[in-house]
Each structure stands twice: as structure tokens, then as C-alpha cells.
């Protein structure tokens, strides 16, 4: 533990800016993954343990698309839409059979998918650590704000994730599709009796959740290593975010993801050996004080 370092960092503007921007980056990427996870759980009743695998695939798709075209826009779209398509495929063939099933059964199916996809990725891309080159457009000296370092790519990432979060909130809250999805989450039989093809709604929701994970993977490819099994650690963090925010709540997921991001970023200074533990500690405290999470309605 190094509380002195932490206190001196919080006291200095430059360190504060650097750590906050790093923390927001971690948090917003986490939000993209966790919001899909919580959406799929809230509407479909599926605990998608394979959600991290979708993130990993997004990173690999982006990597290959970038290698082929050199365009960041294309690589981001490839990660997002590629994973949405893959998600649609596994939803129709696999996941729709286990909605509302026992969690153990869901875990089993998802775990099998995780193992299979990790191996598929190894066959296609190999088992080494890969990294997507930082696109030339963003390869500039970082901004210096108050003495702190903020890379340009971080700002791009903030912009994209916040825009997506806003779009998601508008889509779920202000459109007929969103209202139908929320109604189907509560009572899908009644929604079907009103003439809505709920299978299509569920498939669309899964595809949206998958697209969010794919986007997160694609955006992370230039700043994180892309490696088989990369989905597991982000999955665990996403679950922590989902539980802290409240299962099924997208707003709660945003708050919790930023909280976890900042915890990681500042924790790495104050408690370098206990950053992971800090996240679990935070989850335990939230669960003790509010068992349903910050914005959830049902106990986790």
C-alpha cells in the first residue's frame, strides 16, 4: 500500500488529470461491455458468460480489418457489425434455447462457447499477443492539460462511447422499439399477444448487446493487447459493474463502470497490489448496503 503516493497524486493537478483520463478510458470501455451484458440479462433473462468472448472477437475483427484497409473507421465498423452478426448467429442457433433456463445450464453453454472460440481464435490468429497499430490520424503528441497527459485517442474514445451511450439511452427510452423491448422484458407473452414477434425483438436485443461488446473490443485494440482469453478479465469486471449498477439497469452500469475505472486508475497508485481486490471490496460494500445494486430492482 502506498497511501502517500495517492495523497500526493490527488494533490497534484497533473497527476489527477492523467489518472482521471486513464480511469475514464477504462470505465467507458467497461461500460460498453457491461451495458450489453445488463441489457441481455434484463430483457432475455440470460446471464451471458460468453459476453467477454464477443469483446475479444471485436478486437480480432478490428485488427484484421485494420491490417487490410488501414482505416480506423472500417476496423471499428468491422468489429461492431461483425460481432453483431456473429451474435445474431449464436442467438438463433444456441442462446434462444436457454432463455430463462437454469443459470447452471446457461453457464455450461456459455463456457463451452468461450473455450471453442478461444481455440478458433488461436487457429486463425495464433496464440501470441497482438496489437493493432495506433492509426496515423491519432498518432500525435498527447494533449497536456494542467500538466497532465491526455492522449488524443482517449478523447476519441470518450466521444464515441458517450455518443453510443446517449444513442442507447434514446433508443431504449424514447423509441417505440425501446418501449416494446422494455415491455417484453416484463411480460413477453402479453407483448406477443398484441401481435409483436417477440423472437425478433429478442434477437435484435442480443445483436445490439453483442455489437456493444464488439465495439468495445474494436476500440480497445490499439491500446490493449489482443490475445486469446482476453474476454475473461473484462467479463469479470463487467459482472462487477453489472452487480454494482443493478442487474438490468443501463444507467446504473454507466455510473458503476466509471466508478470501477477510476478505482482501477487511482488504485494502481495507492494500492498497486490490491487493485483487483479493491473492485471486489467495492462490490461487497454496495451489496451489503443495497443488495439490488445502485439502480436495480431485484437483488443480485
Amino acid at each position: 500500500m502506498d497511501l502517500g503516493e495517492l495523497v500526493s497524486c490527488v494533490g497534484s493537478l497533473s497527476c489527477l488529470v492523467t489518472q482521471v483520463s486513464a480511469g475514464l478510458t477504462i470505465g467507458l470501455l467497461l461500460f460498453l461491455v457491461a451495458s450489453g451484458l445488463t441489457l441481455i440479462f434484463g430483457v432475455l433473462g440470460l446471464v451471458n458468460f460468453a459476453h467477454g468472448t464477443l469483446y475479444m472477437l471485436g478486437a480480432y475483427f478490428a485488427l484484421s480489418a485494420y491490417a487490410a484497409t488501414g482505416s480506423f473507421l472500417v476496423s471499428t465498423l468491422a468489429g461492431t457489425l461483425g460481432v453483431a452478426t456473429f451474435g445474431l448467429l449464436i442467438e438463433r442457433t444456441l442462446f434462444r434455447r436457454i432463455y430463462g433456463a437454469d443459470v447452471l445450464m446457461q453457464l455450461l453453454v456459455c463456457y463451452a462457447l468461450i473455450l471453442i472460440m478461444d481455440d478458433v481464435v488461436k487457429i486463425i490468429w495464433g496464440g501470441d499477443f497482438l496489437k493493432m497499430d495506433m492509426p496515423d490520424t491519432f498518432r500525435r503528441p498527447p494533449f497536456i492539460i494542467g500538466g497532465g497527459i491526455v492522449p488524443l485517442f482517449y478523447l476519441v474514445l470518450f466521444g464515441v462511447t458517450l455518443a453510443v451511450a446517449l444513442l442507447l439511452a434514446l433508443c431504449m427510452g424514447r423509441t417505440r422499439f425501446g418501449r416494446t423491448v422494455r415491455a417484453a422484458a416484463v411480460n413477453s407473452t402479453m407483448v406477443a399477444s398484441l401481435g409483436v414477434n417477440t423472437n425478433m425483438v429478442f434477437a435484435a436485443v442480443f445483436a445490439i448487446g453483442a455489437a456493444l461488446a464488439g465495439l468495445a473490443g474494436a476500440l480497445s485494440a490499439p491500446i490493449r493487447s489482443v490475445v486469446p482469453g482476453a474476454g475473461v478479465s473484462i467479463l469479470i469486471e463487467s459482472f462487477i459493474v453489472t452487480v454494482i449498477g443493478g442487474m438490468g439497469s443501463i444507467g446504473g452500469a454507466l455510473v458503476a463502470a466509471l466508478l470501477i475505472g477510476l478505482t482501477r486508475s487511482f488504485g494502481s497508485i495507492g494500492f498497486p497490489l490490491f487493485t483487483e481486490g479493491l473492485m471486489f471490496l467495492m462490490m461487497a460494500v454496495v451489496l451489503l448496503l443495497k443488495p439490488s445494486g445502485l439502480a436495480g430492482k431485484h437483488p443480485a
Partner: protein
Amino acid sequence: MSEPELSVQGLDAAYGASQVLFGVSFDVGRGETLALMGRNGAGKSTTLKAIAGVLPPRAGQVILRGKDMAGRKPYRVAHSGIAYVPEDRQVFPEHTVEENLEIAQKRGLDGTAGWTIPRAFESFPLLLPLRRRMAGRLSGGEQQMLTIARALMGNPAVLLLDEPSEGLAPLIVAEIGRLIRKLRSAGTTIVLAEQNSRFCLAVATRVAVIDKGGIVWHGDVEQFHTDPTVQSRYLQV
């Protein structure tokens, strides 16, 4: 009667291993209101569920305007023109009244959008001042009106109503009765499952009595009035 709007033939339905319907058959002509009457557990609700596809029938036919709907998924049945209002109402509690209506909006069989949200509020004026209220915060009578209005948003040919008067105050029951008669005069075919025989006789044109999962009496409402045995034999507790 010319070709019936809805013809139910030999309908069997079961919950798991326990069979509830044994060959239920009846016809409803276009624009008629059929009251399906019977004691608790006779199979009224199950019949409506089986027609709507919510409980897939084991056997039999549900023929709407000449096409068999039996075995179709509930959303396909709804698209084909059968709207279902369940017994426990099932409004979407965390959606406003207006949003409840919006979710159900779709075109009718002939492609026209006869029922729109403004028209629903015109026909159900009590709902208008409540349109931004969460449906879960409405009274039972208001919820019942909302579910009927919501079902109409799909412009159905046939409306299935399960116990629309259940648990409501007499004034509200009378209001719902007026609504049903208005829908009938507008040409909607209605099947309602009811225990309240006074309510039935006030709104129905035909009566089918169900007992132990089968239709035991079928006729005009006037015949029902003048047949003392059917009422004492099948309806009194």
C-alpha cells in the same frame, strides 16, 4: 347465419397432463357478441387462451374467416385478427397509458389503421386525462379499459375478453358494458368469458354454456332467457 367470423371446432387443450377442454365447438357470426358462460373451472378462460394461441391447443381448429389459426404462435394469431384481453389484465405497469397503446398499434386485416391513439381516447374518454400516468398506478376499472383499448389498437376482427367485469364496481361494470355494446354496433365480433350472467345478458347476442370442458348449450340470448333449465343446471353454484 352466413359463414361465421370465428368457428371453433373440436378444441382440446391441457395444462401439462391435465386436460381441461374436450372438443369445444361453437360459431360466432360477424358483429355478434358471444358470451361464454360457465362455472369456475369449467374451461372459459382456457378456451380463450387456446383460441389466442397462448395455450397451444392439443387438437381442433380455430377458423377465422375460413383460415385455421390453431397451433399458430400468439403473435401470428394476433396478426391474423384475433385480439386477446387476459383475465388479469396485464397492463405494462411501468409504461404510461399512451405507451401501452402505442406498443399494440398495428394495421388491421385490410391494411387500414382504423384505431389510432386519438380515436382510442375518443372512445375511452376516461383514459384521456390519465394518458401520461403509469399504467400500474391506474385503478382496476381503468386498467380494464386500457387493456380493451390496447387490444383494439391492433384493429382486430375478433376481440376475446376474459372476465371483463371481474372485481369491478357496478358503475364501472356498466361503463364497460356500454363500451362493449358500442364496439358491437361498430361491427367488432366479440367473445367474452363471464360468470356475471346479468352482465352477459346485457351485452351479448348469443350465449354458449361450457361445463367440464365442453359446450353444453348454445343459442340466442332470448332463448337463453326463456330456458330455465340451462341456467339452473349449468350455471348455479
